[in-house]
């Protein structure tokens, strides 16, 4: 049963990911991305990580992708030709990534990795509590660094927006 769901989600994720870059209409690309986010959330649910699944939808589908759509619609580009001649660069990066994946697969095949037994979803604290505790104990430093990066990005965005206003005021 788990395998059927996994292959369904994996197939849809792979297909829609290709569609995101292959479709000519940016709005359709955004919709393909939306379907992909949903299926990634579905993968999390099959792994008993409901919290991650919900956050995936709230953050990526609910906020970030809406902003993308917003920009696409404001620019009102029916189909953008400027970015359709990146095949050499994309091919090079694709080949590199493929080699990496194949190398990793070969390594893991030799390291005889038996699938870990699925944890009992009922017993113990929920995954929300577990994620919270892991974030604020084991991964406290990376967590703080990530918040710092976000803070810097936020200040940067404000300065970029304000600079425009100041110039307008001076003119």
């Amino acid at each position, binding site marked *: 049963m788990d395998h059927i769901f996994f292959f369904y989600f994996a197939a849809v994720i792979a297909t829609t990911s290709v569609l995101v870059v292959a479709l000519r209409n940016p*709005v359709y690309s955004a*919709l393909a991305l*939306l379907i992909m986010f949903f299926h990634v959330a579905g993968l999390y649910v099959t792994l008993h990580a*409901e*919290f991650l*699944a*919900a*956050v995936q*939808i*709230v953050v990526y*589908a*609910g*906020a970030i992708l*809406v*902003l993308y*759509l*917003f920009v696409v*619609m*404001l620019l009102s580009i029916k189909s953008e030709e400027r970015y359709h001649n990146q095949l050499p660069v994309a091919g090079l990066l694709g080949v590199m990534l493929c080699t990496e994946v194949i190398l990793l697969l070969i390594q893991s095949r030799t390291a005889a990795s038996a699938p870990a037994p699925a944890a009992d979803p009922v017993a113990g604290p*929920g995954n*929300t509590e577990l994620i919270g505790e892991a974030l604020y104990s084991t991964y406290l430093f990376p967590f703080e660094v990530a918040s710092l990066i976000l803070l810097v990005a936020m200040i940067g965005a404000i300065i970029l927006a304000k600079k425009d206003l100041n110039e307008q005021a001076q003119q």
Partner: protein
Amino acid sequence: MEIGLRLAVSLAQIAAVMGVVMLTVMVLTLAERKVLGWMQDRMGPMEVGPYGVLQPIADGLKLFFKEDIIPAGANKFLFTLAPILALVPAMIGFAVIPFGPTMTIELFGMQVKPFVISDINIGILYILAFASIGAYGIILGGWSSNSKYSLLGGLRSAAQVISYELNVGLAIVGVILLSGSLSLVKITEAQSGGFWNWFIIALPFPQIFAFVVYVISSVAETNRVPFDLPEAESELVAGFFTEYSGMRFAFFFIAEYANMILVSCVAAALFLGGWNAPYPGTLLGHLGLDALAWIENVVWFAAKVYFFLFLFFWLRATLPRLRYDQLMRFGWKVMLPIALGNIVLTAIAAYFFPR
């Protein structure tokens, strides 16, 4: 056999909840016009049926038989998809709302919880997730109509929904801190035993500020007056659904009212004790009629939800529409700091005085 039966019971529960929601939407369309009429010193609809009570049926029939128009140059696929994308998230959120006590009854040898369709441990996040999906219906509907009014309405709505969704999420965090759970069933149960345990006034830190932020933000999120800029009649004809007619228009309409009911249910469950009566236990329970106590609980839940729905109408009759920049400034510079401050204070209070 077992799985089939379970599926049938679940489908029956879903159908019952959908039926109740659709019925409430019908009642609301009439109630809104009647309440607005009384507040403006007029009668409201009076023609169809005694005292105008059959008006929703007439409206429904009218919408059903209207011609379905797809404007020239519209994106047909997205134009058809948008109303569905608006309606489905509005209906799907009701799956985790506890409408009554978490009692179980025996049905065909199975344990069935009649008032809770599903109690998942991230219930409130589930509602937030699907509420955020509702914005797609509005944006895509506006974009695919190939009309300037619709596009502007859709874009306004996108900015508004994202801004106020954040405030809704942050206002809820205080309640989650106090109850220690994301499940709406557990949050409701944590407020049992009298109105002084409701999170709006419960010790150690009353969530009254969070409640105010939540109510204001949820009015904005459902695009209701005074935050109905996406469909401002005087500027944008009808906003993102200007070009829609017939049943597609009805889908957007039902989605708006279903969203109102959903945010009212969440407000009742999070801040006003859900199905708990404002006194310990239930009156019917004290009289020795424990088997009928659920009636009292469900009535209390409905009363709280209808209180919020009345509030929506009241606001619509009272307040003028905000300007767009006022709306954004209010959301980011007033609501957001209050919600963040509430989280900090609640966290400190919950740390020193654990419940």
